[in-house]
């Protein structure tokens, strides 16, 4: 099994979720993050002095998938999250040894 992790623009979450549903993914875990990268942050002025805020808010999605689906799920996310502007984010895939569903104790593909 694989774990696909995506860091995307917060305002693309709904589009990505829709794409994942279309791709047959049944569950997703979502969390807040922030990133540095090519995308520049913004400057704020406080009491006449300027400061740069370079952490940009992002959303992290984590999706457990069967090996065979990893590539297509990853592509689906890229397609749905893309705006073409710097800062659109990253999607990466990591190998997973095992997955368990807490409710039932099932393992492997059944646990997804």
């Amino acid at each position: 099994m694989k774990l696909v992790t995506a860091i995307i623009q917060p305002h693309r979450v709904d589009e990505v979720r829709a794409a994942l549903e279309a791709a047959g993914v049944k569950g997703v875990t979502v969390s807040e993050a922030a990133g540095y990268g090519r995308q520049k942050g913004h400057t704020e002025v406080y009491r006449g002095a300027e400061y740069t805020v370079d952490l940009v808010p992002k959303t992290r999605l984590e999706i457990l998938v069967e090996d065979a689906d990893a590539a297509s799920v990853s592509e689906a996310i890229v397609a749905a999250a893309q705006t073409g502007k710097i800062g659109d984010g990253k999607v990466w895939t990591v190998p997973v040894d095992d997955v368990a569903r807490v409710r039932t104790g099932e393992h492997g593909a059944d646990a997804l």
Partner: protein
Amino acid sequence: MDSPNVAWLLTAASLVLLMTPGLALFYGGMSRSKSVLNMMMMSFSAIGVVGVLWVLVGFSISAGDTVGGWFGNPGADFGMASVFQAGTEATELDGSEFDLILAAFGATFAIITVALISGAVADRMKFSAWLIFAGLWAVLVYSPVSHWVWGGGFLSDDFLFEGMTAPQDIAGGTVVHINAGVAALVLCLLLGVRKGFGKEPFKPHNLPFVMLGSALLWFGWFGFNSGSWWEADVFAAQIWLNTLVAPAAAILAWLLVERIRDGKATSLGAASGVVAGLVAITPAALSVSPLGAIAIGLLAGVASALAVGLKYKFGYDDSLDVVGVHLVAGLVGTLAVGLFATDLNAFGDAGLFYGGGMSLFVSQVIAAVVVMAYCAVVTLVIGLAIKYTIGLRVSEDVEVAGIDLAEHGETAYEEAK
């Protein structure tokens, strides 16, 4: 005192008491989330310490029989015993009543003045040191200075201004704002800058709190200024109107400065503009016309908006801009009286622009300078005494981890669980 005036002063005193929690919110919102409670506690504890001390000796030092113009005899009315007795024994409305409501009103001024200072020492002053400082300063600085200006003491025409034009200060430009501003400067110099000062912005953690705090201050300030006239009449109305339009103008001035200098007009600027305008009109509200109040508001807004940046230049960590707002706008207002006081003025003397010449202006300068000098010296002595006994400042570890947890064992906000 007449019943209508008592009715108004009961209200006014309540309004002024609300200013201190309003200030706690104004300052607390500007703090970081790890030190908001400590900041608010400096105001709340000032109510406790100064409120009790005022009853015990403060009132007597401020309003008791003068000892050579320097201070009222602290034993004259210890525990407010005689003002209380005189008031409650009176069977009809006479002068004695006057005293009890005014003595109470005075307590709220002492409290807020002490609390104002705390904005300069955010994030790093020991709570125990603050409690001691608050008590000593209220007794040794606030009470005598209020005696000089309002108790017929040193800065009245019985003493320093004998034969001169008396300075005009209806509600405390000198006693409250210049006084607190100077104390703030001295105390933050003694404490030293916070770790990260000048590099990190230490941004306000909750700007709606700052705005709400400024609004509660404004609301309370109507009692502060109009109540200081002691009568509910046309002059109280004049003061009220000026207390509305000066801050209104100062908001516009501050936002304009920001717009021009930084490109954006901020909410912190609007809230700060409110306070700067209020501070500046405090000494002037009975002296000037509504147009004069607008002018003073504009001047104060511009002056303070520019002044809050000076701390970075000169390297004093006046954390929440007590100097930039209270000292600077307090001076603007106090001096502006010498220029804008009209000839319809209940105090009598007009300022330079209304045909009164320079003499009022000169008196305003003298009053400001005397208060600044006395306050600076005595605050320094108090501050040094604390510094070299129990110490003024928490450790760097505490500062980094947040003073709320170390000094109060609390964090302001608890996540959902």
